[in-house]
């Protein structure tokens, strides 16, 4: 079985935000909810790099560990998903997440946040039927069920964002690093997967 992972090659990301746009369009996420974002550090000075970040589908997911209603589950592919029918919108997963992945449609007085939304690795949710109207409405498209990989990575023009089986992703990245003789920087992997490339 595959173990799905994301890897963003910071030497390649050009901050075009194509992944962000692809995600928003594919899943029709509501206004204000951003399952993926591109962050640029050292903007405009030597050493500037950009990284595209979303839910990393952690091995020992902090969100799942702190959820009061235990609404998270990990699929056989290692994808961390959650059940919006159980979610009470308490915000704990957002406190715990290192990557700022959990999103809420609301943020109002008296702790009103609405049901949490996050990157599903394009794998939908726990609804019985893949790509049913209900699933699409709550979680977006289920591309994994169609045998496709996440659209953000598929759309990435420079192939900076890699998504897929962790071993394959790591192989591709290692080959790149060897060819260009750079130091490997598998961003976020240690935090998410407790292992490097």
């Amino acid at each position: 079985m595959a173990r799905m992972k994301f890897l963003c090659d910071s030497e390649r990301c050009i901050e075009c935000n194509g992944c962000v746009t692809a995600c928003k369009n594919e899943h029709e996420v509501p206004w204000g909810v951003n399952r993926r974002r591109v962050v640029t550090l050292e903007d405009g000075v030597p050493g500037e790099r950009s990284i595209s970040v979303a839910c990393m589908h952690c091995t020992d997911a902090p969100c799942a560990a702190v959820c009061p209603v235990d609404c998270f589950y990990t699929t056989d592919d290692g994808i961390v998903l959650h059940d919006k029918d159980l979610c009470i919108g308490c915000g704990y997963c957002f406190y715990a997440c290192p990557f700022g992945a959990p999103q809420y449609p609301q943020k109002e007085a008296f702790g009103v946040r609405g049901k949490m939304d996050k990157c599903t690795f394009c794998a939908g949710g726990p609804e019985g039927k893949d790509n049913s109207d209900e699933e699409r409405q709550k979680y977006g498209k289920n591309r994994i069920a169609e045998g496709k990989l996440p659209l953000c990575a598929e759309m990435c023009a420079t192939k900076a964002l890699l998504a897929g089986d962790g071993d394959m992703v790591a192989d591709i990245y290692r080959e790149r690093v060897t060819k260009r003789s750079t130091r490997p920087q598998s961003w976020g992997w240690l935090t998410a997967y407790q292992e490097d490339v």
Partner: protein
Amino acid sequence: MSESPSGMNRRAKRLRAMLWSVVLIAAAGMLLPLTAYVWTATVQAQESSDAAAADGKNPRSEYWREVREAEPGYTAVRGQETAVLIQSRGQTWRELRNGPVTVLGAIMVVGMLVALAAYHLKTGGAKLEHRTGRKILRWAMSDRVLHWYTAVLFVILAITGLSLLWGRYVLIPAFGKEGFAAWANIAKPVHDYLSLAFTAGLVVMLLKWFHHNVPASYDREWFRQAGGYFGGGHPPAGFANAGEKMYYWVLVVGGTALVVSGFYLLFPNLGFERAAMQNANIIHGASALVLCTAVIAHIYLGTLGSEGALEGMISGEVDEGWARQHHNVWLEEVQQGSARPAGESGGRSAAAPT
């Protein structure tokens, strides 16, 4: 065999030249390698001046340092803290919340229940030694309403709040995920909306009863005798004994922590960042558990633990015997008429001449 003086001269010259060259070679052999130090020093000086030109920083290592330290960069995505790539505080929060707060909190609350049960089984609680039948007004109607209003809200908030903390371990196994989520979906808004009403009650209560809870000199004696709970007589006590005063001050400190941290959690719209929310959550949980433990002890001592105490908070009046037994200083003050009126209807007090 004889040699010419010139030949001797030549040989001596050659020998001298040889000696000198050996000395020179030896000296060069020792000194030349040392120039490496000069070379490195020069290079280092060069490098440091280069580095100084770039603020003494290596751009690449600088970049990953900023990532690790959660420094915000630029992102086109609008929102709070969206420019932060990674925050490690969440891990600390997770460990504190799932560890000490959840576990130590349970040990504290359950420990108090067990300790009180053991105490009650052993001693049977404090019995009212002598019921005189004469009544003294202890809690005016306004005090009683305030007490029960805050008490009921506290219990509701405790049950709903503890559901979110322990429900996953206690209630999900019992009701299943769907069943518990249905309850949690009610518990959360109930907790959030009633919190303000509770805060109002708590604040008024703490202000209104402050004068009962100023430490007095005889409180030391109460502590020395451990309140008389473990044998011995009845240590002196005013309107509130030293234990009750302690309970009051636990409410002051714990209640303030609870209310302030709760405020942070209640209004995510005011722009509090994750760090504030994480700290608030830990403080809220810890203070709530301390208060729950204290309240459990309070409930026991107000009901089973002290016969005759509860009537004071129901009818407002206590038996004179109970007052003598537990609050002798207060009783004296009442009988001398020097006690601050317990309520709005001072005429019902036994101190009033009839």
